[in-house]
């Protein structure tokens, strides 16, 4: 078969796996959260039900072309991000299009979906959307700082920006994971991940009681279905990226499932334990201790490696 077609086919398979894992992971964590709070919770396949239901909504409204394209941008952003990450080390099937660029590409491609979605939501004219975006962007500038520092520390440590090479450098037992070779970088990175995932205490962006779910307020029916699909994919894409950077990557699909699940549990654990920050509080938070930890990671990498 033509290698390009084959590559696209592999990417589609890889994406399909990730989508399902993302939906199920969402269900599992929702259920765990419910149990923590003493409820029974939703069935694990609730994600599928939601998406199917939304596609079959009888009415569908649009506020304009950009509004229509917003979810497309979002999905493209999520899928694209995943496409540039090699999901399983050494697996051709899960290598995706990682040869298009290195970790800087992934870090910037994340913005593609966010920006497009924000624009689409903006055209709805709903003030809550704009307020949500304003908060989200403000918070983003802050949590990206420790993350960027931890990536810089990795570049200093491994002398490469290629995700594959970073994973390769962590092979040969868990003591080679970044988690153990440069724990500062991992701490800074994982704290950033909390911000990226927008669970408590960093959930003011979508604050349901205040600005009903923020940016996607006006989205529904098939638009919302697309956004939900993306949420599943994008969630896993981020987790896979962190797994690759900090936790030795994965050589098998089971390894990938376990590692991403565990990593996500950190977010859930923190999320159920803490109340919400105001935006300015979370900005200050990220720019203080996590940033210092990030700097420590860089200094550590320079001194040690």
């Amino acid at each position, binding site marked *: 078969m033509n290698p390009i077609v084959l590559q696209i086919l592999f990417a589609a398979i890889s994406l399909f796996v990730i989508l399902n894992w993302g939906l199920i992971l969402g269900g599992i964590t929702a259920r765990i959260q419910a149990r923590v709070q003493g409820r029974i919770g939703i069935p694990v396949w609730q994600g599928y039900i939601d998406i199917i239901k939304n596609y079959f909504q009888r009415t569908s409204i649009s506020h304009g072309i950009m509004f229509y394209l917003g979810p497309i941008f979002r999905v*493209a952003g999520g899928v694209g991000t995943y496409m540039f990450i090699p999901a399983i080390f050494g697996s051709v099937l899960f290598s995706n299009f990682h040869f298009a660029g290195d970790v800087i590409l992934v870090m910037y491609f994340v913005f593609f979906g966010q920006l497009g979605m924000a624009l689409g939501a903006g055209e709805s*004219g709903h003030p809550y959307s704009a307020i949500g975006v304003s908060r989200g962007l403000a918070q983003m500038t802050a949590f990206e700082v420790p993350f960027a520092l931890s990536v810089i520390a990795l570049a200093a440590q491994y002398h490469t920006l290629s995700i594959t090479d970073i994973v390769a450098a962590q092979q040969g037992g868990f003591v080679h994971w970044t988690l153990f070779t440069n724990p500062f970088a991992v701490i800074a990175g994982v704290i950033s991940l909390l911000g990226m995932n927008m669970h408590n205490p960093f959930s003011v962006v979508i604050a349901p009681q205040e600005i009903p779910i923020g940016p996607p307020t006006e989205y529904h029916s098939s638009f919302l279905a697309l956004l939900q699909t993306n949420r599943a994919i994008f969630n896993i894409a981020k987790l896979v990226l962190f797994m690759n950077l900090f936790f030795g990557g994965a050589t098998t699909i089971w390894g990938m499932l376990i590692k991403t699940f565990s990593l996500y549990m950190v977010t859930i654990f923190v999320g159920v334990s803490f109340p919400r920050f105001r935006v300015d509080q979370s900005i200050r938070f990220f720019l203080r201790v996590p940033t210092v930890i990030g700097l420590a990671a860089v200094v550590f990498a320079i001194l040690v490696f």
Partner: protein
Amino acid sequence: MLSPLYLFAVALGLAFLFGLFDRIGRAISMTLLYAALAFFVLISGSWLVHLLGGAAPVLIQTAGFPPPFAIALRMGVEEALVTLFANVVALLGAVYLGRRLKSGPVTGIVLYLLVVMGVNGMVLTRDLFNLFVFIEITSISTYAVLGMQRSGASLASGFKYLMAGGIASTLFLIGVIYIYRVSGTLYLDGIIQSGTLFAGGVGFLAFFLLLASILVELKPFPANGWALDVYQSGHTGLAALIAAVNSAGFLFAFYKLLPVLPEAALPTLVGLGLFTFFFANLIGLRHTDARRILGFSSVAQVGLVAAAAAFGRLTGFGAVVTFVVVGGLFLNHLVAKAGLFWTAGILGPKGSQASAADSPAAKLPAPFIAAFGLLIVALVGLPPFPGFWAKWQLVVRLVSGGNWVWLGMLLSGSLFEAIYLLRWFGTTVAVRRAASAAADAEEVTRTVPAFVPAPKGVELDEAESEGSPAKCGALILGAILLSATGAVMTLLSGEFALVQMLPVAAAVALFVLDLLPGKLKGVLSLAIIAAAAYLIVPSLSGLRWFFELIFLVGGGVILISSLSRKGRQVGYYPLATMLVLSLGSIAAAVTALDFIFAWELMAVSSYLLVLRGDRTGKPSLRYAAFSIGGAFLLMTGFAAAAAALPAAVREIPAIVAAAGGQAVAWLSSFVSGLSLSGLTAGISIDGLLGIGNAAGSALSGAAASAGAAPGLVLAAMILLALGFLMKAGAIGVHVWLPGAYGEAEDDASALISSVMSKAALFAIMLFVGLLGLRAAGVTGGPLANGALSAAASLPEIVAWVGILTALFGAMMAVFQEDVKYLMAYSSMSQIGYMIAGVGMMTHLGWTASMFMAVNHLLYKGMLFLAIAGVIQRTGTRSMYRMGGLIKKMPISYISALIGIIALSGVPPLPGFGGKWLFYTALLEKGWYLMAGVAFFTSTVAFLYLFRFIYTVFLGQLKTRFQQLKEASVWLLIPQVLLIIGTIAIAAFPSIVLTPIMNIVSGFFPATVRWENYTVISTLGYWNGSLVMLVTMGVFITPLVWLLLVSRKPQVVKQFNMVYAGERPDRPETTHYAHNFFQPYSRALGFLVKPVFVRFWNAVNEGVHSIAKAFDNLYSGNGQTYALHILLYVVIVYFIMRGSL
């Protein structure tokens, strides 16, 4: 040849006969006056031609005996030149004063003629007592003519003048007596030849008294209160006469006396002149009355000419150097000052005030404003006027002589002068524009309130402030005369390529054609730029080629937008074309002088463009001040570099030498024995940087660095870096930037921000980057020392300045409500990245920087033009007043969208390529902290970009914009071109990256390589084409899917949305836009405290306070002024005595 004696015969004869002729009719007297003055011009003019043709200077013996037995007059080139200019200005002045002379008593005409005659006499005579006689004739006629103006202030000032003149005359007379006693002759050449005058103490005292008299007449600070009062309260025509013509006489007298003095006395005179120059200009800052500031400027300029003359004597200027430096400064002052006094008169007492609400400026024709502008530009010392050439040569000499204090006084004084003169000009232009805007307010779609209410057509003092055609004509002729002098100086500069005159020539041509319709002129401008690009670009290579493309092609594309303008657009096209072409000249400059020349032309044209904006009083002045201040640093830096590096670098490339040679050959056909020796400072840029030629490659090694002065190299680099960082708007010196970018006309903002901003980048690459490289190369040699290694590490400091500029520029952009200020700060931020890229001094860093430069040109052009369209349609610049415009202006929206995606660095557009290169370069270099700051900065960019596109194009459409149309097609065409360019680069980055990498490989070893479509660095890789494909794939697939499942969603109205039981009332209250990032400001607002604005304001305040303290010297009391004079003379005596 006509004997100069006719000057006196005609003047004295007519003076007696005027009474008679006047009985017949005033018209006869006036005709005779003009004829007499024209005759004066003829005499000196014919002598000048004769003498330049090779004739020997003539000594005219008045009574038939050789001196010392009779008075001798000398007619040499200097005398002919000075009298020619003085007579021309006197003739123009008579035209200016025409109506007044016509209506007053006939004595006015007589006195006017006598003043002019007296000045001619002062210039020509070689006899000291005769000099005294002519001084007296001039002075007494001047008092009398001042006294004819029957206002109290004028009489009082005339009396003060009389008093000062009396003291000076007394000193002179006593001096003359003693000189005769000591040397036995009053014949100047006799005294010089015998050289025995200073043998005893008496001789010095005698000569000092004489010199002191002349010094007092030159109105030195602080003994010049009397003169300032005369300038302010006398009729402007008379003030012009005193400032220009009378000063010519006294300055020449001073010049004549210099050879008598021993060398040891000269530094004192240089110091005194510059002291006056500095303080007069400092105090001038405090004043807004046009005549008062012109008075300060006159005093200052006379001091400067005297200082230059003394300095020339001290360091032995040759004939040509004297002409360019002393003559240049002097002629510049003579013509410009007279013209500006006339301008002040035409504008009237109200027009000369800063806050003129009802100035007659509005009614004056465009050529008047043009002439006004030319004279101001000339007086400030900008090219192509004589003052520029003079200042450059003077700076070079001061630096090579190590006269740093004098240099500081010269440059800071010049800066002060520039500020107050441009303030006056700027105010006048603003008033004029406001008035004309009010006049055709119906046609103007913009509803921005005018800066100043329209004039109400007040009745003006008829005698003083009427802009009659004759008056304006005199002014315009003066400006033309000065321009011609500037052209001669330009030819004389020798090393200077004529092609560099292209911007000026194009501007002049377009200004002459200004009556044509605007669109036609626009097409002409584009044609000129296209032709220039066609001719110049292929002749260049490397960095020059790259930046020439950016400047000319980028400038041309953006200039297309100006075709959307309606009406004739007087003055716009000459300036815009001049700006683009001067940028082209910067890239093509071969010598440092070329470079400075083009750089200043860019500053002038962009300043005037900014001035055309709506609310540009302060911003344009601030811009001018920083531009000029920066240019002075550059001049000094170049001069220091030339002084520091070995003589071998001063080879002038053949092509320039050839062009300069032609010019000189042409001039030689008029001037026999013309020799430019000593004139050229000859700093070849390539030679300086050690690139490209044999001399350079030899010099980059240690062997050729013998003779280099490491301290000076460091000083040169710091000065150059500071000057260019100022122009780049680096943090700390950025305070001019937002105003200049933001307040210019909307399409001009695009030009300035997207094209002109690269000039600083180009310059930093050359003169910080490559010069640093050279310094580093020299470090390894025998010269290795601290200064050079410091010079080599300068780029790192510059990189930090760049990255902080990027950070704070972005931060400030986040909190702007005005869309143009937001974009202006964004430009500042983006330029900061590029500077940081240069500072890395690696292959990747420079590649990143240049790649970002191309991108910035594209996206900032798009963004500013899209904004221009929006502002044109909505009539506001406040973003929160807009909203929902995507529905009305979809193409502008697409342009803005592409622009922000490209700017933010989101793949797949080429902004990401820039970011990728930049981070990779930083990480490769090991500058991790800077990489962190850069990443933070680039996320902050998302904030302001989203805010911009959301609050302008998305959200709620306001009711009053329901009928809005898409922007003018002429604005859209360049945007579409830029979009096509952006997409092309996104799909195939190599079309831009490969040439850039090749250019940079000439300076640094490459650390990146291409593998098919992938760029591979030591750290990572990036395949732009593949990213583009994948992005399209992941975008189109869900789009097709959505189109399948949700083909026809119901399109709803604006307010149809989920709103929690509340009903949206009006778009204004529903559009979340004002203070968009309030939480962000709560967390990080402390970062954008206007620390630097406060700092510069404090500097401004401080300077003004000091100026005020000195200004208090001028009490207006004649007795105090007399005391000042006496004290001044005594103090100068002791200083000079001590120096001998």
